[in-house]
């Protein structure tokens, strides 16, 4: 694993997430293809809270205090309990961007980190700090895919009554 490369990827992916979202209107950002789906605004706030309360905290624990308990998280529940879809879209995106910058600044300080440092995982077994960093990067990609899917669904809505079949199979 090349930690510098993964950190650069985190920086680049934040730019991509910003590009995928910032041109969306506040109304479209709140739109959901179905009641059970997430909106773009909910995805952005999920990324913000995961940045702040999950991946960064876990990497810190695994590198520095691997036997410490993990603070509990509730990503699915936070969507409703923290009322993500009621938040201001521009502020949410700015907060995510700022939090990512803070993460990158912090990661820069971990020059001699032991990425093999491991601690007990709540689901049993162990997890290494390097696993958590890699998962952090992959988590972005999962939600970038979700954002693209939401854009596709928004395009279908906006194109009515015309169709997009000629583009090919989704």
């Amino acid at each position: 694993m090349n930690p510098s490369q993964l950190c650069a990827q985190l920086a680049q992916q934040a730019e991509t997430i910003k590009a995928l979202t910032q041109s969306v209107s506040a109304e479209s950002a709140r739109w959901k293809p179905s009641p059970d789906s997430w909106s773009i605004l909910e995805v952005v706030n999920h990324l913000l809270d995961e940045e702040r309360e999950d991946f960064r905290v876990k990497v810190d624990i695994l590198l520095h205090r691997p036997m410490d308990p993990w603070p509990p998280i509730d990503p699915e529940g936070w969507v409703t309990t923290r009322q993500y879809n009621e938040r201001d879209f521009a502020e949410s995106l700015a907060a995510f961007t700022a939090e990512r910058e803070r993460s990158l600044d912090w990661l820069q300080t971990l020059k001699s980190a032991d990425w093999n440092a491991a601690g007990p995982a709540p689901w049993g077994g162990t997890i290494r700090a390097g696993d958590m960093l890699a998962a952090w990067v992959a988590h972005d990609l999962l939600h970038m895919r979700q954002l693209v899917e939401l854009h596709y669904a928004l395009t279908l809505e906006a194109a009515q009554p015309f169709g997009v079949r000629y583009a090919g199979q989704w």
Partner: protein
Amino acid sequence: MYQAILLDLDDTLLGNNMDTFIPRYFGMLKQYADQLNLDIDLMQELLVCTQATIRNTDPQLTNREVFWALFGQRTGLDTNWLESEFDHFYRKHFPQMRDVTQFRPNAPVLIDYCFAQGFQVVIATNPLFPKRAIEERLAWAGIPVAHYDYALVTTYDNMHATKPNREYYAEILDRIGVDSADAIMVGDNWENDIKPAAALGLDTFWVNDLPVDPPSPNTVTGSGSLTAFHAWLQNTVQ
């Protein structure tokens, strides 16, 4: 159930080893002061006046008033002018000190949790620095005053005693209207944070990343890392 959580800042919410921070801080301050041609031993005066401020517990005088009154008396300098120069230093040069501190990822998570639980949150940092210097460090820790409605942030402008005096903790409790039995002090420094707060009747949590026992286990309510405190608080609240 606690009503208030008192949290130390340096080496508690923000990684900031004073053995590294203070020499760099004094070095930068001296470099700045050299341009002012003060014709005094600034470092010596700072130490003497800071020690006098720590000894003072007069409720009529803020720490800032004690410090500058003695500084003016000893040096004969215009302290209004010098204080404005110090303010310039804190605005323009102090932010470079961020390099010697370390962001602690769980600090904002813990603060968010405390506010979500409805606790009054006090930043109980030793009030020997002006407001600007303390607010700057809170921003480095990811918990700026612009984002959090703290019940109190103790600075040399607003307090009349310092750590390790019990009067410092008594003043905090008086200001926020909470009894000592309903508050907990969280900090890394045994002499400054734990002993005086415990003596006043507050619960205490000694923040220490190393697996070592507290100097006096009966004095302290809990000990461990900041993350461990977060978990401990969650269990206590449930």
